[in-house]
């Protein structure tokens, strides 16, 4: 049986581990030069910082995952630096591209997609200035390259990553000038009961915030970013505190992120239906608790199937592999299955509370000023999108056709969620009613065939 696994982050590693245990030799495709995922991204060869320095409290997990990754590589058809840019479900074929040029087509009988997630952003004036990046981007710069996005950065957004990334910068000698959290303390406190479903993680979050304040970093909750200011580079953040007082904080870089959104384009091309998850405020591919989709032979695991974080991704990766094995009458570890199901149930409750604690600030997207650049690839403002909403653009794909929002390099991966909010607000409907952008191959830009 030909099994393909896309992605070698926490979910992909644990999925392949179970497949190999069952005697299979899967084809393992990873877009990056090496596995580990974004969370356990490895530094380039030759870098000598230790696990503790790079991954902090996650050092143990990172070390274990990397060890498994290395043990598995020789036992499967390991293809790093390989982008899967199209899925042809009917024929069960993957179109791939390796090292930016070599094309291949790969047949599969079963497929596990572990495609991960990316930051969810909120366009504000100045967000396209050099020096503005995502929380994830800021973290990876530090983790993989040992460099910071600036000496005096500002972190804006909400969620566990906001505080964690800010603390990592403070420890690395680039203390943030400000950590701006759009969520109020009250919202977080109200979700606290649910957060007890994962007490260690919850406590870790509290500890991070306390550590930040101990280091003298200003943390503003229930605050609103107004604009990133500067000429040709980031020079300051203009923002409003919970009492509506305006401030200008000088800084040389900005990292922003409001939770994560699944990178689910491949699931979309595979024909998996999507539903809107009101709690996480994301469109999610449909799957059961084990990762089975309604499309025969296609399984999902990790953040690409719904945001759960790295711990959950490891569990879900193993669980999806067991589901695949069972569905194809191959031996699966039943004791492990029971254990994973129990853990995943608990984690799901924790995740729901976490999403409630750190909501996407849809209200800020909805009242984005007309002049704010919404789609940076095609240079479309919020006002231009609102104009087409008034003229037949009542659905995300329609609005894209009429306004060009989401037609550029990112294919709506960056601007899609805020654009949907702007559109929904202009039409006076709930955001799920405007739908989501249909996936189109290639999922990421690829060179024309026959290229030199």
């Amino acid at each position: 049986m030909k099994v393909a696994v896309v992605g070698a982050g926490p979910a992909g590693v644990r999925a392949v581990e179970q497949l190999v245990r069952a005697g299979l030799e899967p084809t393992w495709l990873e877009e990056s030069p090496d596995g580990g995922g974004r969370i356990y991204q490895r530094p380039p060869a030759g870098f000598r910082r230790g696990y503790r320095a790079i991954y902090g409290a996650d050092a143990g997990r990172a070390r274990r995952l990397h060890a498994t990754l290395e043990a598995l590589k020789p036992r499967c058809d390991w293809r790093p630096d390989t982008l899967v840019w199209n899925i042809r479900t009917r024929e069960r074929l993957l179109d791939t591209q390796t090292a930016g040029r070599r094309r291949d087509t790969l047949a599969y009988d079963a497929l596990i997609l572990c495609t991960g997630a990316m930051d969810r952003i909120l366009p504000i004036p100045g967000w396209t200035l050099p020096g503005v990046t995502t929380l994830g981007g800021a973290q990876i710069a530090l983790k993989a390259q040992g460099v910071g996005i600036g000496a005096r950065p500002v972190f804006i957004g909400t969620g566990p990553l906001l505080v964690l990334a800010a603390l990592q910068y403070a420890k690395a000698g680039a203390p943030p000038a400000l950590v701006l959290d759009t969520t109020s303390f009250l919202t977080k406190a109200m979700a606290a009961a649910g957060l007890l479903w994962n007490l260690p993680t919850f406590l870790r979050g509290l500890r991070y915030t306390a550590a930040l304040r101990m280091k003298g970093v200003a943390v503003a909750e229930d605050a609103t970013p107004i604009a990133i200011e500067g000429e040709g580079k980031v020079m300051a953040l203009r923002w409003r505190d919970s009492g509506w007082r305006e401030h200008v904080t000088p800084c040389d870089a900005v990292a922003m992120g409001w939770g994560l959104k699944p990178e689910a384009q491949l699931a979309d091309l595979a024909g998996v239906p999507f539903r809107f998850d009101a709690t996480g405020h994301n469109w999610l591919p449909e799957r059961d608790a084990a990762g089975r989709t309604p499309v025969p032979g296609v399984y999902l695991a990790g953040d690409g199937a719904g945001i759960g974080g790295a711990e959950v991704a490891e569990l879900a990766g193993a669980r999806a592999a067991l589901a695949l094995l069972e569905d194809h009458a191959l031996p699966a570890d039943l004791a492990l299955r029971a254990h994973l199901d129990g853990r995943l149930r608990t984690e799901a409750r924790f995740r729901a509370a976490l999403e409630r604690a750190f909501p996407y600030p849809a209200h800020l997207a909805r009242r984005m000023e007309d002049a704010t650049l919404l789609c940076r690839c095609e240079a479309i403002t919020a006002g231009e999108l609102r104009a087409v909403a008034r003229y037949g653009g009542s659905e995300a794909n329609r609005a894209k056709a009429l306004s060009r929002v989401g037609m550029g390099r990112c294919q709506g991966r960056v601007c899609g969620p805020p654009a949907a909010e702007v559109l929904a607000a202009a039409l006076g409907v709930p955001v799920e009613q405007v739908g989501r952008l249909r996936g189109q191959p290639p999922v990421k830009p690829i060179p024309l065939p026959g290229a030199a």
Partner: protein
Amino acid sequence: MNRAVVIGGGLHGLSTALHLARTPGWQVTVLERRHVGRHSSGVNAGGVRRLGRDVREIALSAVAFEMWSNIVALVGDDCGFQPGGQVKVAENEAELRKLEGRAAQVRDLGWTHEEVVDQAEVRRLLPAIAPHVVGALVCRGDGSADPMRTVMAFRRAAQEAGAAIVEGSGVTAIERSAAGTLRVVTEEASYEAERVANCAGAWATRIARMAGEEIPCGVKASMMIVTERLPHFCTPTVGPTGRPLSFKQTAVGTVVIGGGHQGLNDPERETSTVLFGSLAHAARIAGELFPCVKGARIMRSWTGTEARTPDEIPVIGESRTMPGLFHSFGYSGHGFQLSPAAGAAVAELMARGATNLPVAPFTQARFDA
């Protein structure tokens, strides 16, 4: 007041509705199953082309060209029309002779818009063209427009002229009423009308069948890819003579590559799917004609569903089983340019039963033989 229903909110339906709504005494309703410009009208390559037309289409295409040249007067918007020219390049002497033959044929019919140019002139028109190209057939006034912008301009103009456009309203039956008028039935309502136009594109044969008429016509789903933005290097729309490709650089710098390569079509589900294999072929040809696009990255690919007749020219004319119903479909992937003129012709046929516009070659009688 006479009433008319136009079935199909694509470009041909909207153009027909626009012209008829501007005819005194007509009240027009457009019924569109999904939304305006949903299929090929909204996603085609936007070619405004007389070059290389089937000889039976040249006259109508020439009328349409006049209308495109002053499209603002017609719909109040320039539709993104850029008359950068259309160029069919010859990659060898044999192809050049073929193009010379074509130019002579068109000239003999009394038209002068197609012109053969030598290698130096091709180089001047297309500085980035590969060195092996020896000459070309050129139509200088041609060019391309923005299809979605064109659809919306026609929609707006039709509405301003008084036409009602009902989206999300699919036709389920057409009957003759007791009063002798036609009744167009949708799931929600029914519409009485003296005249009905069938501009339902890939689904038009179903509408014809509702009127008890069988017209030979299939479907097609031409695929296109678009690259990321590149510095400006090409003004005209370009195609080779012996190989399937259409190539243009848009105003924003992206390159749109098509050429009639067919995707997978599913008219039942109203979807079509890109097949990359044959698109890759088109992309390879593009790189051979324009070496500078090698290495450019593909951003998106798409298809649109369209009707294709056996002889690849449209069906325009009155139904033979249900008088009062007029067909206008089967443009076979090159109806975009014709739409202003075809809509005028169909509106005239509907309003007064005759037209001086050159649509006689398109009656369905041609399939009788």
